[in-house]
């Protein structure tokens, strides 16, 4: 095997293994999942039981619970009861002067802090209201600035509500779609080359690349449907992007039907190149443009922030970009094998024909 000529195939294998191992093994950051009491009243005690994820409360020596006020100050808890490594219950005494005169209620976050996990917070969890009643004389604690939180430097994947662990699917599902787009781009390039030069090699290359892209697209749809099952509960939603993507895949299936129904090689090559270019344009419009104009559950469309700034953390990026490269190179390898196989078959037939003359 000529390693120097095929360095990119070795690179794709190495990158895929890296993506698989790192993507599955790196843990998710700790976070707060749930709490049970969201109303607090000034002058009274506020008891809450919180459930966290991926925390080590039982091993922490310096465990604190706070209510984070909008003024960036924190109210410490009076008392913390550990239930287990991920659950605890805390009680706070809410001072009476905590609500400034300009507003009538405060929305606070619950923050739990320890030296192993750093801090976990549930934003906008509690509403503090003033009913004017005082239950008993309570000992109020002093407010603490936000800088006293302990940060921890750890390489973790971000904690996202609703998806939790399945954020790892970004490297598989989304990377497959991106790889599909790149492979289709290369296929369109070869189609244009064919139309300009009528060299049948380009037609073979573009058809092999399109078939690999179709396989990736179907795999992307199925993985997306599974992801939807685990996060939103259904296999298929009435989402614009999902519909448009399946329509785009149907267009590529019809590319194959067109190709297989034509017998003359030159006509087949010419028509399928034209159809390939035109389905790529249709794909771009259907999948990129239309979902942005309407509401969609997918990130980056319909008013949601774009998939790039808010959805991709820096830690996710270090595995996401290699995943795209790995899938693209893998697809290019499979397409190259396909082209070489068909050309070898044609050459053998040509040789047999020449020898028999």
């Amino acid at each position: 095997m000529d390693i120097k000529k095929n360095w990119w195939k070795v690179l794709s294998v190495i990158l895929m293994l890296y993506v698989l191992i790192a993507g599955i093994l790196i843990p998710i950051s700790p976070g707060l999942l749930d709490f049970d009491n969201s109303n607090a009243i000034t002058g009274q005690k506020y008891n809450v039981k919180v459930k966290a994820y991926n925390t080590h409360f039982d091993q922490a020596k310096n465990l604190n619970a706070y209510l984070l006020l909008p003024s960036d100050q924190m109210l410490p808890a009076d008392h913390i009861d550990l239930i287990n490594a991920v659950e605890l219950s805390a009680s706070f005494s809410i001072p009476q002067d905590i609500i400034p005169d300009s507003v009538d209620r405060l929305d606070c976050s619950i923050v739990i802090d320890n030296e192993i996990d750093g801090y976990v917070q549930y934003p906008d969890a509690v509403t503090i209201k003033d009913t004017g009643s005082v239950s008993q004389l309570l000992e109020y604690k002093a407010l603490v600035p936000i800088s006293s939180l302990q940060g921890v430097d750890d390489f973790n994947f971000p904690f996202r509500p609703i998806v939790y662990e399945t954020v790892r699917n970004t490297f598989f599902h989304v990377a497959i779609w991106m790889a599909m787009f790149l492979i289709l781009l290369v296929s369109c390039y070869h189609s244009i080359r064919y139309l300009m030069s009528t060299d049948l090699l380009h037609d073979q290359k573009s058809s092999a690349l399109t078939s690999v892209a179709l396989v990736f697209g179907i795999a992307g749809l199925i993985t997306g449907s599974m992801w939807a099952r685990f996060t939103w509960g259904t296999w298929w939603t009435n989402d614009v992007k999902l519909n448009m993507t399946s329509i785009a895949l149907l267009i590529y299936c019809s590319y194959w039907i067109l190709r297989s129904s034509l017998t003359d090689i030159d006509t087949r090559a010419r028509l399928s190149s034209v159809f390939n270019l035109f389905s790529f344009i249709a794909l771009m419009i259907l999948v990129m443009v239309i979902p942005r104009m309407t509401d969609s559950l997918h990130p980056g469309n319909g008013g949601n922030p774009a998939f790039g700034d808010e959805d991709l953390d820096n830690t996710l990026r270090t595995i996401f970009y290699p995943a795209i490269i790995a899938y693209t190179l893998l697809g290019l390898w499979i397409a190259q094998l396909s082209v070489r196989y068909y050309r070898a078959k044609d050459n053998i037939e040509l040789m047999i024909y020449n020898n028999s003359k």
Partner: protein
Amino acid sequence: MELDKKLRDLLNIMKSIITTFFLIIQCTLTLSAQSEIDDFFRSTGKIYTVLGVVVILFLVLIIYLIRIEKKISIIEKQINDE
């Protein structure tokens, strides 16, 4: 020669099927291992099984591709020599 070509035809079809399955299975396993999210514990024991299965499937695919690559290189060299 004929038998070799027929075998390769079959292998090519199976290749595309296996690629699709591989890409799907690795996601299924990753996601199904996370269904223990309700316990709020990291399923450390099971995650290594998932990783092992996915890596083994991937390596099977790669070995298959390398085999096909070798066979095609041999045939191309034969064609070039003639």
